[in-house]
């Protein structure tokens, strides 16, 4: 047996070396070098003793604690304020107005480049939903016993998923009036009693992550291809033709559709479990999940996707429409939908990757990597936005 590593010695000290316990002990009896190292470790760790017990706060403190719990629990369990409920529902109400603004500012920018910031502002408005939802969820706890809480949670979900939901409704029932009918139905649905989240969602999470791996491979390939579109439309069309050979295979289509369904169902099962005021990361993780669920539904229900027998549109035709989204209001509706889809995907996967990285790297290293990932992600989104607005290198 070769010399023991420091980590092996630590595990042995704590009796956590499992089946290797006897083997390590035997080695320590025969290897002087490791025995000395272990002795030093033992000496150090046994000298690190816990601090003295502190006295538990006396009874008068318990009374104060009682008051504090009553006050704070009372304030948390209060109804959600009408202003927050109104805020989250305003997002889908006003969303359709942002689309003609994107188109007209896009036309202005094509004539005069100085108008480009107007496109950015119009896009920011269209993409505001998930951020408004996060802002609101960080300020109010959701208690499904209250009607106002249910209206608030439903509004936050709709606000977060607005671009996808709008596209879906517009595809099935075109016309602004139908959008507002759909919103009215969504308000009514959110007021109904919500199903409770299962206590343990550990197994659901495992299934969610497994299906996410399949979707991630597909999504990364897809995003990579969209980035090729920044080089030129023809390069995108060529890459798309090549990729179609793979993902139009029956088995691949079946795997992707199943994974998407599993993602949506498992995500819905976890629901709002981790959503709570102040927990920005968890709240954004849930919000990006809601967005991605709507994105997947809208994507899967897109014409042609669920119709494997149909001949797909030529790649060049797709490229021509895909990279000219500022031309029509319909195209403009796809712009925030696609950009937020990429942002939500990168955030959702990135947050999980960050947690996984903590198993192998120090927090400071993970933080540095996170900054690099944010920079890379932002670059990807900006490049995609330029490509979708018709800006190409060639």
């Amino acid at each position: 047996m070769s010399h023991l590593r420091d980590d092996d010695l630590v595990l042995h000290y704590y009796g956590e070396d499992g089946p290797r316990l006897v083997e390590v002990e035997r080695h320590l009896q025969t290897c002087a070098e490791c025995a000395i190292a272990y002795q030093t470790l033992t000496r150090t760790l046994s000298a690190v003793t816990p601090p003295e017990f502190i006295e538990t706060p006396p009874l008068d403190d318990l009374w104060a604690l009682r008051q504090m719990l009553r006050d704070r629990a009372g304030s948390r369990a209060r109804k959600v304020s009408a202003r927050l409920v109104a805020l989250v529902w305003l997002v889908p109400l006003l969303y359709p107005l942002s689309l003609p603004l994107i188109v007209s500012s896009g036309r202005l920018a094509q004539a005069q480049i100085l108008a480009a910031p107007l496109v950015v502002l119009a896009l920011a408005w269209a993409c505001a939903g998930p951020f408004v939802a996060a802002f609101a969820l960080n300020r109010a706890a959701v208690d499904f016993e209250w009607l106002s809480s249910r209206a608030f949670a439903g509004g936050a979900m709709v606000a977060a998923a607005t671009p996808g939901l709008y596209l879906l409704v517009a595809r099935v029932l075109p016309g602004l009036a139908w959008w507002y009918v759909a919103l009215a139905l969504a308000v009514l649905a959110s007021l109904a009693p919500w199903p409770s989240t299962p206590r343990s969602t550990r197994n659901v999470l495992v299934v969610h992550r497994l299906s996410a791996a399949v979707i991630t491979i597909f999504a990364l390939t897809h995003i990579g291809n969209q980035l090729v579109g920044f080089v030129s439309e023809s390069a995108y069309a060529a890459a798309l033709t090549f990729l179609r050979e793979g993902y139009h295979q029956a088995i691949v289509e079946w795997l992707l559709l199943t994974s998407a369904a599993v993602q949506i169902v498992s995500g819905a099962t976890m629901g709002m479990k981790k959503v709570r005021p102040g927990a920005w990361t968890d709240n954004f993780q849930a919000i990006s999940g809601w967005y991605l669920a709507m994105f997947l539904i809208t994507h899967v229900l897109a014409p042609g996707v669920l119709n494997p027998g149909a001949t797909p549109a030529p790649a060049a035709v797709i490229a021509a429409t895909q990279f000219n989204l500022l031309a029509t209001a319909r195209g403009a509706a796809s712009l925030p939908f696609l950009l937020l889809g990429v942002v939500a995907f990168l955030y959702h996967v990135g947050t999980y990757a960050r947690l996984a990285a903590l198993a192998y790297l120090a927090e400071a290293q993970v933080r540095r990597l996170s900054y690099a990932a944010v920079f890379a992600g932002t670059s990807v989104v900006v490049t995609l936005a330029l490509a979708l607005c018709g800006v190409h290198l060639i």
Partner: protein
Amino acid sequence: MTDGDLDVFLSLIERHRRYLYNLAFRITGNEQDAKDVVQDALLNAYLHLEGFENRADLRTWLNRILVNCAIDHLRGVRRRPDMYEPQPITDVAETVASSTPDPERLVSNADWRRQVAAVMKTMSPLERVTFVLRHFEGRSIAEISETVGIGTNAAKQHIFRAVRKIRLALEPHWSGR
């Protein structure tokens, strides 16, 4: 939630209060912080009391809530530079080596405790929590990973890094003798 619920809750947690305060103190290293962490944990426990139904062990449940509140609290402290000023680990090591003539005697010495506390402050919240649970509380790595909500491998790595920091700061003293 009624006053009756609150009374039941307080009577339930009363027998665990001493344990919770001391665990919070071991993790945060500061009485006021321990008090804040326990208050947050009790508030969370009270608000999610229905989540405890059908669970066998109240202490395990409270423990999990407290540990997560402590991690949040430590992260909050690290974000506030006025409250978080850890010495670089090399400074801690130098201080220990120069000011501690007899290790055996110093283990019970207040100065030694301060040195250990200084090393603990150089740890990240997860390193600190996993180390306290493993080293002071004697929890298994499997229990720690479940309590903190991370994988067993992650829990091991945090403990390894915490022990490395302890050794880096304190071992120069032993080896110098």
